[in-house]
């Protein structure tokens, strides 16, 4: 396995507003290597975005953030960086695709020149070459008539085209890690498949690391090499996409997969929802976060915080934070 290029460990992120404080991420971590696609899965509010973008300082303004743990990009400690070094890292090392391209692109700025600026600043191209690069990036992202689109404003493009432009913008600085934060959620179903195919193609061609933040299991099965399942700010289960999707162990992962409709079966009522709602992260309990919604819970789950245990050996360890299921099903752990 290649060494990770972006790596986060023991991350704790508290978000403050004047009245509430919420522990959005509670001791979670992940890592991704060049050429690899990591999917971070979880429901809204599970901390997927905060965990991935928080160390980069990419949380919306207006919320106070307290962040502890370690985060390394290419071996360098991100959290110890000066603001200007971190800015350069955000611009050059990472490329980010946001959820809703309609609101994530500045309505007052033309699309092409923004790409050219990134190419000039981070790929070291001349103004002339940067403009050419921008046009070819638009073309590569599947935008027809890129010469014309170069000088367009966001409102002149459709949602699908805008997300392609967003991808082109994220690639313009030739990043080594591409973070796609729910890149298809705001798009039409037919466009979603195209955008996922585009991300996969770019990843194959450039061999960059991709982090896909999503709650779309379909997107995970299409793109991901590895999966981390996040619940209430903690990693519940992680492993290769095949292991996690076909042999899930954690009750939450099982519930999550059971709630996905299977269109190949005649029986659409085969989907099951997980009862209850995620815990209030403003009030921290010592035990397992999933305990109130879990059908396998025992009294000890309330007092003991489960740690991740490896349940399968191999190049990609499959790790699960549920001692109850591991013991009950006689799963062998390797630690």
């Amino acid at each position, binding site marked *: 396995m290649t060494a990770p290029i972006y790596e986060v460990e023991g991350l704790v992120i508290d978000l403050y507003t004047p009245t509430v404080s919420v522990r959005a991420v509670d001791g979670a971590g992940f890592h991704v290597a060049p050429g690899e696609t990591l999917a971070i899965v979880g429901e809204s509010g599970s901390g997927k975005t905060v965990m991935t973008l928080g160390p*980069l*300082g*990419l*949380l*919306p*303004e*207006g919320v106070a953030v307290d962040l502890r743990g370690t985060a390394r990009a290419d071996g360098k400690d991100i959290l110890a960086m000066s*603001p*200007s070094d971190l*800015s*350069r*890292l*955000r*611009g*050059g090392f*990472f*490329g*980010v695709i*946001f*959820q*809703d391209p309609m*609101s*994530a*692109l*500045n*309505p*007052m*700025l033309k699309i092409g020149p*923004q790409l050219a*600026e*990134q190419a000039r*600043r*981070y790929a070291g191209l001349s103004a002339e070459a940067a403009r050419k690069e921008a046009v070819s990036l638009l073309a590569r992202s599947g935008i027809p008539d890129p010469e014309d689109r170069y000088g367009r*404003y966001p*409102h*002149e493009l459709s949602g699908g085209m805008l997300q392609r432009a*967003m991808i082109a*913008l*994220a690639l313009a*600085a030739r990043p080594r890690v591409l973070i796609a934060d729910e890149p298809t959620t705001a798009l039409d179903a037919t466009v979603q498949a195209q955008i996922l195919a585009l991300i996969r193609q770019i990843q194959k061609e450039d061999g960059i690391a991709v982090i896909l933040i999503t709650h779309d299991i379909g997107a995970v099965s299409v793109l991901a090499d590895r999966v981390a399942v996040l619940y209430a700010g903690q990693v519940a289960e992680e492993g290769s996409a095949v292991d996690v999707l076909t042999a899930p162990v954690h009750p939450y992962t099982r519930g999550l997969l059971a709630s996905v409709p299977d269109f190949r079966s005649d029986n659409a009522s085969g989907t099951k929802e997980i009862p209850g709602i995620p815990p209030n992260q403003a009030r921290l309990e010592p035990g397992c976060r999933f305990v109130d919604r879990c059908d396998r819970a025992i009294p000890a789950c309330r007092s003991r915080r489960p740690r991740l245990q490896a349940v399968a050996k191999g190049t990609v360890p499959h790790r699960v934070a549920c001692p109850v299921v591991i013991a009950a099903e006689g799963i062998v752990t390797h630690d």
Partner: protein
Amino acid sequence: MQRMFMRRTGLALLLMLAATALTFWLVTAAPGNVAALIAERAAGAGADGAMIQKIADDLGLNDPLPVRYVRWLGDALTGDFGVSIRTGKPMAEEFSARIPMTLTLLAGGGVLALTLSLVMGIAGAASNGGVVDRALHGMALVGASTPNFFVAALLVIVFSVWLGWVPTFGVSGFTSWLMPWFTIALFPASVLARVVRVNLQDTMSRPFATTGFAKGLTRRAVLLREALPNIAIPYMTTFGAQFTLMIIGAIVVERVFGLAGVGSFFIEAIRFRDFIGMQAILTLFVVFFVSVNLFVDLLAMLADPRLRRPRKA
């Protein structure tokens, strides 16, 4: 875009017409008799009822109001605003003498308000909750709640009486304009500084600002290059409204600093029941209000690509 332009301009002309008709009615409805005033000026105590009647007939004051308005409008459109009862000079002459004074006051005040508000608003947003931000917030609050006659008096005491840096009143070179400009600019600058600050704060929490950070821009660059263009529309619209309101401020400021502009003429016209002068100045105000707002609206449309270049169907 062009249709929008034509529509706005047409609406503005209609508005001017309605507003001048309204002021015409209000001015004539005010207590006092123009004919009696003129007779008194001409003959002193010797003015009698017959003379007043004759003057009223000659001037057409006994005609119905709509007839008088249409006659006035016809004259006004050819640049004839009548003869001031107070000074005995044609209003056109008074205008050409006084408008440059008021325009200098408003232009200087406008530029000052523009500069101060942008500097204060951006500095506040850059500090983002820090000491500078809070201090500027306090200053804007004080600036927006201090009446201009008080500001003027304070400035005169400090800079003219105590320090002797600038003249108390009158026009004698650039320095004599400093206090009037500051006095008239303080309120709009304070209001606009808040508009800049609040809108910048809102814009900085929008997703495209996060994209700006993701592009590797520093906070200052995001603020100036990504957020600032987005506040152009609320800023320009509020600036237009504040700039037109400065003409009200001019009435006080011209009096305090002894500037012979249209504002001080207006006060004198009211004191003297100079109906012709009042109507002429009010017409000037109406034209100023409507045209500045029209201009600002059109400018705001040009600043926004979504209005300038609508999506093709």
